[in-house]
């Protein structure tokens, strides 16, 4: 199958399914396209909101490239985002002082929280023999449970406990934003640094090369003297760090409090992005932008035409599924559940 078909068919299929579903709801697809664009990029505020959801997605996807490269299915990424958000919330709630103290401290705490949660999955895999897919999935829910427990228990809102979240953090603990916009240049900077850092690490450094060897053939890597366990744990830790930062951005830059669904699903969405992009970090940024733009557009459709916002997820899902079936790069590079003997 030609390259053009492989690239075009998923897009065509996704758009076709979107158009059919819209037609079923009695909406003209061309009108919808305009609204999606408007929803994502229609004004400075819209662009800023889109970029602010781009940040956690890019961070999660960048981290996932590292674990995929190491031959790992880090399904636990959602939990690592939540762990980061919890750690950031803890600092935001308890550390007094000005913003230039609290915000970096919250980010660092989030990073550490994500690393710890990821290493847990990593150690379960390397020492406990627990496949990281099941271990990670379990830890996702444990983290989610911990967040809910904190929100309803120790960190409950003043007055009555509610699943709508903790009290809003004091303003010093918010990620600083541009005036009158929700756009935080710091958050964008962190995302770009994470993305570029991972790209450089994997392509331009010796540890990155060794990690690719570990993921490509652990047996050969071991014969070549690469300490494979340390590299596997390192990959988990790095992904956890970036996911933790994503959690901090969600908590201190978007919600300004801890909410039960604080991860926003960006971890799982990040897996889709990486499945499409393969190990090519250059594609992560643009693909993530398409993803969040479509999602923002879906919200706009709901507001303006009363079309359910889940349409955007359907369109993206169809695109990724068709790409996988056509043998997208990520489908080949995705590690198997069990190595062939």
């Amino acid at each position: 199958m030609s390259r053009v078909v492989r690239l075009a068919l998923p897009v065509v299929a996704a758009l076709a399914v979107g158009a059919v579903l819209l037609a079923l709801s009695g909406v003209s697809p061309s009108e919808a396209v305009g609204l999606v664009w408007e929803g994502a990029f229609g004004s400075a505020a819209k662009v800023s909101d889109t970029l602010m959801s781009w940040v956690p997605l890019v961070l999660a996807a960048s981290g996932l490239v590292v674990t995929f490269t190491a031959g790992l299915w880090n399904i636990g990424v959602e939990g690592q985002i939540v762990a980061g958000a919890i750690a950031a919330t803890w600092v935001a709630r308890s550390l007094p002082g000005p913003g230039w103290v609290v915000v970096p401290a919250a980010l660092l705490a989030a990073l550490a929280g994500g690393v710890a949660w990821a290493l847990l999955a990593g150690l379960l895999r390397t020492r406990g023999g627990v496949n990281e897919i099941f271990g990670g999935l379990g830890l996702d829910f444990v983290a989610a449970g911990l967040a809910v427990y904190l929100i309803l228990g120790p960190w409950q809102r003043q007055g009555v406990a509610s699943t709508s979240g903790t009290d809003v953090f004091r303003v010093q603990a918010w990620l600083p934003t541009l005036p009158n916009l929700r756009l935080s240049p710091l958050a964008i900077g962190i995302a770009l640094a994470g993305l570029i850092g991972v790209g450089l690490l994997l392509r331009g450094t010796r540890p990155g090369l060794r990690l690719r060897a570990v993921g490509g053939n652990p047996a050969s890597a071991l014969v070549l003297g690469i300490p494979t366990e340390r590299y596997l744990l390192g990959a988990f830790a790095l992904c956890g760090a970036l996911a933790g930062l994503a959690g901090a951005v969600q908590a201190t830059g978007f919600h300004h409090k801890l909410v039960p669904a604080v991860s926003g699903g960006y971890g799982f969405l990040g897996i889709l992005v990486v499945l499409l992009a393969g190990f090519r970090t250059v594609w992560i940024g643009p693909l993530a932008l398409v993803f969040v733009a479509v999602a923002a557009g879906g919200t706009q459709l709901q507001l303006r035409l009363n079309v359910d916002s889940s349409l955007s997820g359907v369109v993206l899902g169809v695109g990724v599924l068709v790409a996988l079936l056509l043998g997208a790069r990520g489908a080949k590079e995705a590690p198997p559940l069990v190595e062939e003997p």
Partner: protein
Amino acid sequence: MNLELRHIEKRFGPTVANRDISLLVESGSIHAVLGENGAGKSTLMKIISGFIAPDAGEVLMGGDRLPPGSPHHSAAAGIGMLHQDPLVFLPMTMLDNAMLGSDRNTRTAAEELADVADRLGFHFRPDVPAGRLSVGARQQHEMIRLLWLGVRVLILDEPTTGITEAQREQLFAALRTLAGEGLIVLFVSHKLEEVAELCDRVTVLRHGLVAGETELPTPPLRLVEMMFGRSVEPVARKRIPPGEVVLDIDRLEMAEAGVGAGPISIGVRRGEALGLAGLEGSGQRLLLRACAGRLRPASGRVLFEGADPVTRSDKIHYVPAGRLEEGLIPGLTVTEHLELTAPDDSFTIDWGEAEERAGSVIAAYQISGTPETLADVLSGGNQQRLMLAMAPDNARLLLLEQPTRGLDLESARWVWSELDRRRSAGATVVFTSSDLDELVAQSDRIAVFFAGEVVGVVESSTATTSELGHLIGGLAPGVSS
């Protein structure tokens, strides 16, 4: 009822596993298929049993052509195979193992299986999970199952690996009984003495081809020659005056997965090439890995330049035989492979420079590929060149497993000239080979392994292939047979 193979061909990617193999086995005979690892024996047996389909050629049973690649039809035609690692389901009881895939009556099965076992002198244990039985017992149960299903051709792939001596004797007695009843037994092995003890006829495979076929008994030396062959005029090795002893192996004993070797004591000098000869699995691989620091000695010691090999890993390079299994990394390019073992320890890699370096390595090592070629798409010879090129220039001990296996003559010559160059620069080479001429031509000394022990260390200048052949076959040198 005869079993016949006609012009069987099978390739795996660029590797030819079987080339134009024809064979006729008559009922009631025990027929050996002999050859070194990688000679194509297992592939051929899997083709007969329908496990894999040949690219060309056909299998006939009693004159009827069998559909290719269908274990179902081969089994129906009465062909059963006992795989090297018996294909049993470990958590299931032996009765379940027997019932799986059969259409026999469950109620009477246990009794029938016990009867078959009695006939063979075995014992069938219906309620025991396979995982709790020894490999030998699993094998016996598999044989019982196959005979219960009524096989007329019984293929045994290296059946004596991992079983006890007593089990081996039971097995051979059972096989003789079966042949007496008119069954065809195909006995696949790389062990000469077993073939000589058990079989009526032998076909020797080498590099995927039939190297010869003969009645037994025959002098073992002839079989060794057929197995190991004679390459066309080996390249002359460069004599390098050996230096002091750098690799000191002292009463070394090793064990892994139930297979042991040793005690071995030998000193290898700087610039020397030490060949390790012997039938495969006699302990050579264990020794190589112990010298590489990848296998801890059970007792005794290995020292390289006076230190534990583990602490000398930057000076020692190990080149395993399985190029894609444990040597190279699929998905990484030639340049990336070279960078993995580059002595440069800088954090970042300048890929421009790296590609330039790779380009000159490619030219020097005559690898037909570009710096961006993925290692897994190179041909076998080029993969071997790459693996040698990955040995850093400052490596002072090169440990190579079957460095020329599967290579054409030109590539093999090239490998040896490269190793000569390394030795001239002060490196010590220890290698295994299944080619006697190569061992004589390329080693200063040859250590011959038999059943886990070094039974002789010979100077290659005075050694003859026939002397080696005797040692390898476990025979006293000089005794004519």
